């Protein structure tokens, strides 16, 4: 059998059920009944080499579970997952040799040790010779911009620096594939932006790494991910590029039309017209403005907006402007979840 490895990360019908601890009462009366919580269900994804793949979902949707299964820290209960053709259950050691993990849990460092002492320890556990480790620590710290604080204790760091430490630890081994769990959580917007640029420009474009990134931030996914999957309640709802997901929801068919006239009257007129189903809302342009803004979404036919404007003109409503708007991503996200 000739099997070409086209995807660097691949899962097929991956499922995870966590055992749920039982209370004393249940232990007593139903000692053999298993209680479980489903965290992932039939997850099938593919990630190509050299791309930033985003896993986007609200809290508790199963992002961390999937990321940890892929990095061999949690075992799946059904289906399969492979990293570069290596099985996550049976080839843990080989997977660790090509991957790195960045968890967003700041508890995972020794708080009373300095940044350098922490990184040295984890470097040794990753089989990096001491001299090389020192060189890499220096290099990564200056790349991420915290080399001036590397001799301070971890407990003195700001949450931004702690997050950078987590990223630095993931980069120590210069892994081919990097798993990142909410890398910009608890960072302010400026630091987040710098970090995203770093991930996109330095890690992926320059070093050609593959990045699997879990996030609950729509903007982050849009900014840096080549492709992403939307996950909710452990189920992948959609996956593809931003463009593909937009098209899926006909996202580029939203229009804002500014007209003159009385708001209530216009609302009533549209409500009893052919276009009532397309209407999103009717508002004043400004709180005290004279103009009225009509927001509506059109179906698949381009002519629809033309016919609407025609109808406005026929109804003696004076059109001032018409703008084609994109649906904000977080709204798309909500729709995709509730679809």
């Amino acid at each position, binding site marked *: 059998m000739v099997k070409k490895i086209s995807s660097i990360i691949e899962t097929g019908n991956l499922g995870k059920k966590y055992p749920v601890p039982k209370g004393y009462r249940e232990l007593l009366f139903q000692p053999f009944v298993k209680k479980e919580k489903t965290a992932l269900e039939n997850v099938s994804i593919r990630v190509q080499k050299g791309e930033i793949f985003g896993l986007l979902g609200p809290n508790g949707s199963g992002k961390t579970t999937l990321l940890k299964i892929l990095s061999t*820290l949690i075992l799946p209960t059904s289906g399969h997952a492979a990293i570069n053709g290596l099985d996550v259950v049976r080839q843990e050691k080989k997977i660790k040799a090509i991957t790195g993990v960045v968890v967003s849990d700041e*508890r995972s460092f020794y708080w009373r040790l300095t940044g350098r002492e922490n990184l040295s*320890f984890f470097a040794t556990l990753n089989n990096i010779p001491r001299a090389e480790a020192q060189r890499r620590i220096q290099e990564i710290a200056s790349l991420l911009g915290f080399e001036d604080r590397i001799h301070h204790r971890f407990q003195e760091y700001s949450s931004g620096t702690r997050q950078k430490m987590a990223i630095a630890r993931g980069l120590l081994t210069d892994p081919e594939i990097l798993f990142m769990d909410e890398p910009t959580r608890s960072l302010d917007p400026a630091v987040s932006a710098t970090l995203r640029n770093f991930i996109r420009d330095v890690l992926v474009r320059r070093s050609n790494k593959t990045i699997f990134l879990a996030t609950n931030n729509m903007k982050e996914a849009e900014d840096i991910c080549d492709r992403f999957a939307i996950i909710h309640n452990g189920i992948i709802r959609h996956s593809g590029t931003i463009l593909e997901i937009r098209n899926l929801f006909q996202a580029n068919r939203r229009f804002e039309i500014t007209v003159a006239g009385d708001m209530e009257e216009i609302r009533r007129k549209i409500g009893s017209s052919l276009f009532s189903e397309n209407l999103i809302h009717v508002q004043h342009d400004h709180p005290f403005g004279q103009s009225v803004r009509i927001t509506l979404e059109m179906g698949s036919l381009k002519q629809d907006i033309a016919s609407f404007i025609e109808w406005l003109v026929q109804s003696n409503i004076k059109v001032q402007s018409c703008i084609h708007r994109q649906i904000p991503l977080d709204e798309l996200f909500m729709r995709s979840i509730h679809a």
Partner: protein
Amino acid sequence: MHNLPFIFQKSVAFLRKDFLNESSYKFSFVSHFAGILFSVLSMFFLSRLVGDAAQPYLSAYGGDYFSFVIIGVALAGYMQVALGTFSGSIREAQVTGTLEAMVATRTGAPVIILFSSIYSFAATTVRIFIYLLFGAFAFGLHLSQANYAGALLILCLTIICFSSIGILSASFILILKRGDPFNWIFTSLSWLLGGIYYPITVLPEWLQKISYLFPITHALEGIRLALLQGYPTRALFSSICPLLGFGLVMIPASIGMFRHAIRIAKMNGSLTQY
């Protein structure tokens, strides 16, 4: 154990990390050593109370209660550390959240659990050494005819035996987080039956038989004969063999258990829980 070339580096890394961590709690670090003096002193006064009354029971070990008990307590110190350090460091790694970070590295579970104890054993050795020095120079512990090589051999075997129980206990802790019933029973019975404060000959005969099931009994017997009576190593075989057998069976078993416990934790997703 894979990646052998890094084994030495890793042992140093664990030692260094734990030393930096422990010594950063400066008061605890210093008071630990001050405690030794008080301990030796209380043994000394206890032996004044006992005086020569214990001599008939202690003739096999030279007859001096102070020497008898200080060695007993020193070895029991190793026992306590070996039984507690593995589960202690696992528990601490769970609570501080570093356990998952270690498991995520390219170092296997056996190395992680074994090396997390290195600092404790090193610190205990320093402590016991000071303890015995005190005993020898200030209070008349007689080690003039000691067979040090034999004693060291028995000490190493003792550490290995107790470590296996300690690793077993760490496996329980990894899953149950708290409350390991096994370790508690083992420790209590070892103190009761092992002959730390009194020779086992004071026990009723049926209890003496049970006491031979515990490694501490053989360890204490052997190490006292080696240090106080200077028995040659050949003559210590009756203590060495049970310890060796116990270790050979229990170390692989306990490491296997620990591996299994890590698997269960990965199943439950509980590496980061406590």
